[in-house]
């Protein structure tokens, strides 16, 4: 019984750590937090305004290994997807991919929420601009 290899891999070598300029109109920023363990997660997407495809993603998470691994995985998965495809990512997929234990399921929820929040932010910016 030990943390799954994948969690440890993402925890030790997190992908796409960093940030984009949040004022960039092609960037959507999602910021979420879990009250019970103080985890905070910022996930940012860079969207091609022409195609609506997510070209790049970055994250920064303060929290436990599972939260870091979940967000790291989320940034890998959203790249190359359209906004709608990214919205379809469910936390259970993250749970299964990382074999998260029950007590850490909320970390995957956080990652799913972060994707949604980032896309919302991007859409808000885009629609505001179009007006």
């Amino acid at each position, binding site marked *: 019984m030990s943390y799954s290899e994948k969690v440890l891999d993402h925890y030790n070598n997190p992908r796409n750590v960093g940030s984009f300029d949040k004022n960039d109109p092609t960037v959507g920023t999602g*910021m*979420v*937090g*879990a*009250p*019970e*363990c*103080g985890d*905070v997660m*910022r996930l940012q997407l860079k969207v091609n305004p022409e195609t609506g495809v997510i070209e790049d993603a970055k994250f*920064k998470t*303060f929290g436990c290994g599972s939260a870091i691994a979940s967000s790291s995985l989320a940034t890998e998965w959203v790249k190359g997807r359209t906004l709608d495809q990214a919205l379809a990512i469910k936390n259970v997929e993250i749970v299964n991919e990382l074999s998260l234990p029950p007590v850490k*399921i*909320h970390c995957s*929820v*956080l990652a799913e*929420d972060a994707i949604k929040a980032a896309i919302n932010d991007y859409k808000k910016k885009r629609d505001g601009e179009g007006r």
Partner: protein
Amino acid sequence: MNAAGCWKCGGEPHDSLFCKFCNTLLPPATDYYRFLGLERRLDVDVPALQDHYYRLSRLVHPDRFQNGTPNERRFSLDATAILNDAYRTLRDPVARAEYFLREEGLEPPGQNTRRVPPELLEEVFEVNTALEELRGGGESARPGLEAALARFRALRGELDADLGALFALYDRGRERDVLMKIRGALDRRSFVSNLVEEVEEGLTAR
């Protein structure tokens, strides 16, 4: 509790730590309020609770039963464990409220993640970045963190006051939706409290 009556003298069952007939230590009740003989209220007089705790400790602690019968020694250990658990839980408003919610069949906040207000999140993120900087030796992050700590502490104080008001409100009317509000307040407080601790730790660690 003690449904079968006193194990030693056979005296009739009653709610007490010691048999009222032969003064023998009885198997303890596991409900904290019943164990301590307290009215089931969310608002607890903590200094009075502490006095009560010390008094009961003197009576039931295993140190007092070193030369007792095996039954008495076992009950003394059980009773003191429950006494300590009860005191630890009821003296702290948050632990008390969580215990209360659970006893009322409401899961205290935890797994079912609730959103944290975004305006707070932004700051939390900044604080975490500053903490990371400080851990890396960036002393310039310290003043900002100290200011943030003061803000979070004040916020926690406000939330505690809210919680206290909700406790009193519940004790008056025993309405279930007050319990739901308490649950919400606990959720928010837990986040802020974690933050305070994290910043405190970051500021004191070397």
